[in-house]
């Protein structure tokens, strides 16, 4: 079971499906779709970093940054609040298999966890406001 892939898909959709009006952009490398590896202005950019895999009796961790990038500082602030409110609603979400994107299937007995702490730090940029939060996601890797 590709739980680390399911982790990404689940987290991205958790944000996208529950933050209406907010554009979620996953920054990733794809030579066939080059714009994916560029910052998207006026969007929440999600980038996955370290993937720390652990054996079956422990939780594996995925480091992710959530970057709110906007040309309006007050809109950026509103979006950081919305993201925080969503993630603080619960510290977990059911892990879903998005092999068929239109019909995600819950992976039995598996959850995606995160800590109820989100520190948005300002990143200096001359042309836009950039608020960046570092987050650990946890999942059972099998």
């Amino acid at each position, binding site marked *: 079971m590709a739980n680390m892939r399911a982790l990404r*898909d689940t987290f*991205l*959709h958790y944000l996208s499906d529950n933050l209406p009006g907010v554009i979620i952009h996953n920054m990733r490398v794809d030579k066939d779709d080059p*714009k994916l*590896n560029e910052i998207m202005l006026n969007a929440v950019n999600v980038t996955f970093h370290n993937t720390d895999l652990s054996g079956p009796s422990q939780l594996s961790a995925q480091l992710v940054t959530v970057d709110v990038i906007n040309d309006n500082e007050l809109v950026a602030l509103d979006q950081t609040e919305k993201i925080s409110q969503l993630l603080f609603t619960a510290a977990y979400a059911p892990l879903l298999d998005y092999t*068929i994107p239109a019909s995600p299937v819950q992976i039995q007995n598996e959850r995606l966890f995160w800590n109820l702490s989100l520190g948005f730090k300002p990143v200096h940029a001359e042309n836009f406001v950039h608020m960046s939060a570092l987050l650990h996601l946890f999942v059972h890797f099998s």
Partner: protein
Amino acid sequence: MSRANTLVKRISKAITKVGPMSRTSYKRVSTVTGGDELIGRGTTITPVDTKFNPQPIYRQLGHRQAMYLSTATLQLVADDFKFTFPVTQVSQADFQGANTYIVLKDANGEERLRILYIATDDLGGKDLVINVFARSMGH
């Protein structure tokens, strides 16, 4: 004829004389359809290549490092390139699409380059030449 128009003709002629380059340049526009682009599942990416006519000249800027491919016969240098286009056939708008990039092709295959930015040289408000800075993304 205005000085700018004269210069445009001379520059376009000079670019044609300097070429052809060792690899042929194409504009690639990729269309993403279907599936879920957010998570990268089930999407169909359809590239359409259009050969630039006339061909630009390009220069490798030498900022980056060599990159090896799994095939022993082919080595690419993943680098930044500066392309210079005559304005007679293209405009800035041709390079501004999010799904637009440049492809260099030869007998060994193709190298794809992401467009970083576009800078024009102009005189009296008229573009004389279009410079496109692009970064290699691989083969």
